[in-house]
């Protein structure tokens, strides 16, 4: 699963995937766009809990860039924002059911 995702992130693989995708299952690579770039937000804000929740896995982990599709710059800010939100108990450190 993760392997498929890895391939999926590379925008440049899109054309090649179609060529070699005869006997393999077809995987159309969708270009992911950084949400923060799309919304023109300079740095992720720790108070914006709703948006941050999208970058948190079921277990409360910060999702990697290859899954979330954020650009490097915003991912850097995002990790800081998530950690700040955790400190203020706006986001969990671990999932509620594992406690």
């Amino acid at each position, binding site marked *: 699963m993760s392997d498929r995702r890895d391939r999926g992130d590379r925008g440049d693989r899109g054309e090649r995937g179609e060529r070699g995708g005869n006997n393999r299952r077809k995987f159309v690579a969708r*270009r992911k766009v950084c949400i923060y770039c799309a919304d*023109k937000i300079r*740095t992720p804000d*720790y*108070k914006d809990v709703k948006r941050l929740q999208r970058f948190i896995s079921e277990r409360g982990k910060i999702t990697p860039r290859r899954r979330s599709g954020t650009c490097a710059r915003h991912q850097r800010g995002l990790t800081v924002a998530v950690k700040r939100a955790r400190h*203020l*108990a706006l*986001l*969990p450190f671990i999932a509620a059911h594992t406690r």
Partner: protein
Amino acid sequence: MRELQRDYELMFIISPLRSSEEDVTTITNRVQQSVASIGGEVISSENGSPWGRRKLAYPIRRYSEGEASRRSFNEGFYVLMRLSLPTTQLNEFERQLKLNEAVIRHLVTLVDQRGQVVGAASGISESTSVIDDADDTNDDDE
């Protein structure tokens, strides 16, 4: 040398045991006083939604007044403040916050000055979003 003032953002959580309306005002007043005492200034203070009384994402265990053991809190009263403080006095200000028993958590962050401009421009981005969408579809075609 003149002291350098900077804008900060403070968010703190008041213990739910002290979150009645008058308690909240006395506590925020106390914070405002300590800001004033170190030569800072409170620009704005808000505890309306989404802040105010809120569920915590995880229980926080803190000592509360008159109790021997730590108590686990599942709720808190959030207050967000914009401050302008002399940079040299920040440590003193945080020390006073820590001494305040009603405050169970706090966070002081530096406000990005250029971030304000972007924040103001967020209204504009809504109108330009149509154009952005068109750009995205172009990318897919390539």
